[in-house]
């Protein structure tokens, strides 16, 4: 297994290299540059030119690329033009915020989706099942930004149950219990929004897997052994039905750092998604390229992780 893992990681290097080429030149091809946003009628064009020269933006593109990739290879991702600080510390802080929010959201998603999916499958065509299916259709049909705005308006502004932006209130001492509660309080509304919309796929998958598993021969075997129906579900049907969910788990884990653009932007939550949108809007090249490289790496890692997880949960799958 370790041989495969090492091989797969080595294969990632050329993949990431190609990605770096594409993203670097695409980013440079965007109209404008980090300084276009600074231009006002009073700005002296020569001052902008000076800044561009300083930042090395007037160098030929291949040279800029080589300079950038050299730094990246040494672990230096450059400085953000907008935030005037190193990209790695900026992303590190945002990744932490996003990780907390995503983890919270994903736990909510699984806590909601797994019981609903299993119950819907087990009691197929009953009232409960129809309700669950109706819910999943509706949540599938609602765009993220619509529900986010509705929730923000109703629960944030009208009912004032939740704070409407940020990760923590100003002036609360770090490390205290109320600090942690305050952070969770800030995450609740975006996490619930994410969970309400994110359950659809898992519910539908699980439901159809459970329905499918019920008719499998091994379920008949279990029944013929005199195993009570409840145990047939927990020991046989449930475990087999979870396999397709496990297949996505690797992507889910690495996706914890990806963040949701819509949710973070609408709920003013300073995470990776929000950082990504802002860096594109301000042409913050060093941040854009680093983020895309990171997302690319996470996707590759997710597929490797998924394969490893599958080989653990399904004895029929072996990677050597």
């Amino acid at each position: 297994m370790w041989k495969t893992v090492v091989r797969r990681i080595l294969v990632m290097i050329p993949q990431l290299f190609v990605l770096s080429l594409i993203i670097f030149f695409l980013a440079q091809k965007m109209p404008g540059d980090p300084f276009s946003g600074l231009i006002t009628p009073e700005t002296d064009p020569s001052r902008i030119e000076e800044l561009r020269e300083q930042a090395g933006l007037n160098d030929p593109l291949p040279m800029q690329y080589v300079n950038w990739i050299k730094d990246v290879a040494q672990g230096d991702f450059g400085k953000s033009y907008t935030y005037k600080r190193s990209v790695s510390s900026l992303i590190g802080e945002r990744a932490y915020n996003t990780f907390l929010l995503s983890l919270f959201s994903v736990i909510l998603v699984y806590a909601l989706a797994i019981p609903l999916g299993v119950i819907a499958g087990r009691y197929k065509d009953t009232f409960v099942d129809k309700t669950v299916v109706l819910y999943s259709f509706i949540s599938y049909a609602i765009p993220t930004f619509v529900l986010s705005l509705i929730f923000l308006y109703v629960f944030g502004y009208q009912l004032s149950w939740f704070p409407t932006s940020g990760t923590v209130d100003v002036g609360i001492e770090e490390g205290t219990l109320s600090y942690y509660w305050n952070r969770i309080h800030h995450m609740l509304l975006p996490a619930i929004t994410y969970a309400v919309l994110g359950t659809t796929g898992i519910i539908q998958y699980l439901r159809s897997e459970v329905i499918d598993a019920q008719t499998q021969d091994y379920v008949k075997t279990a029944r013929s052994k005199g195993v009570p129906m409840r145990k047939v579900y927990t020991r046989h049907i449930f475990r087999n039905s979870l396999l397709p969910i496990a297949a996505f788990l690797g992507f889910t884990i690495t996706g914890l750092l990806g963040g949701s653009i819509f949710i973070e932007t609408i709920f003013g939550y300073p995470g990776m998604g929000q950082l990504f949108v802002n860096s594109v809007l301000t042409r913050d090249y060093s941040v854009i390229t680093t983020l895309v490289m990171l997302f690319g790496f996470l996707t590759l890692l997710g597929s490797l992780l998924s394969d490893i997880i599958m080989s653990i949960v399904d004895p029929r799958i072996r990677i050597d």
Partner: protein
Amino acid sequence: MSKTDILLEINHLSTSFRIKDDYFAAVDDVTLTLRKNEVLAIVGESGCGKSTLATSIVGLHNTENTKVDGEINYNNQNLVQMTDEQFNNVRGAEIGFIFQDPLSALNPLMRIEQQIEESLIYHTKLNKEERNKRVIELLQQVGIPNPERTAKQFPHQLSGGMRQRVMIAIALSCKPAVIIADEPTTALDVTIQAQILDLLKALQSETGAGIILITHDLGVVAEVADRVAVMYAGQVIEEAPVNELFTNPKHPYTRSLLNSIPQMNTEGQKLNVIHGIVPSLKNLPRTGCRFASRIPWMPQDIHEASPSMHEVAPDHFVRCTCWQRFHFEEESDVV
């Protein structure tokens, strides 16, 4: 045969499936008995209701779209009337079931030992250690060469024959009085088939269990069965001891089946077939002789209006009267 030998008594059993709003009987008024130490073979084409009959005996049908009428008497209890919870004490403990395809019938995610152990958990008071011992013992009993190793393996790591042996071990685990084998050799190649049949026979003589063997393979019947019931379109149309059936078949269907077995010693001869197909559940004629449509060259008046079973020789029963004048299709019959 004394009355005390009787293990399982099936009386007027009908199993009907719901299609839209109507119920259609796939097993129609079947009466059979299974005695101790006996292999009762149930033969018939695909779709004749033999597997439905088998699953009815262990109550594995979905109650929402299936209706089971009649009686299945085991140990002075009527299995048909049992609730699912009551039935769970019979299934696995008193009646063991062997499925056709051992690959799909074993849970792919569970080790062999867990799957065998499962019935021991629910039907015996053995502790974990004793159960493990019993699992190894069972694997040995069904002729698995390295039981300790096999116990730790997963189904996909075993060959087809080994998997079927595991299935048999599962069925035997609680020493059931009745074993139902639903086409246990169909998914296996011929040499393995013979081994599995020998194993079943050997285990039977050890345990004295009664076996109901569902098959469409007359070769298998000839090899292991004591008594044979031939099913056609949901009904038993002929029932006889195995020798009697092969030497003296009566019903046109039985005779056609035997006639359609390819002969090795006749070269260049046409393969004998039975005309038409088994009518589907929905289009099945519910009155009159159900086989009539497949012997169209015979006049209609040879059939009984409502065919019943007649004892034509000791222990040999035939449905309908058409057998008396039946002959195979001749040149002159072709229209």
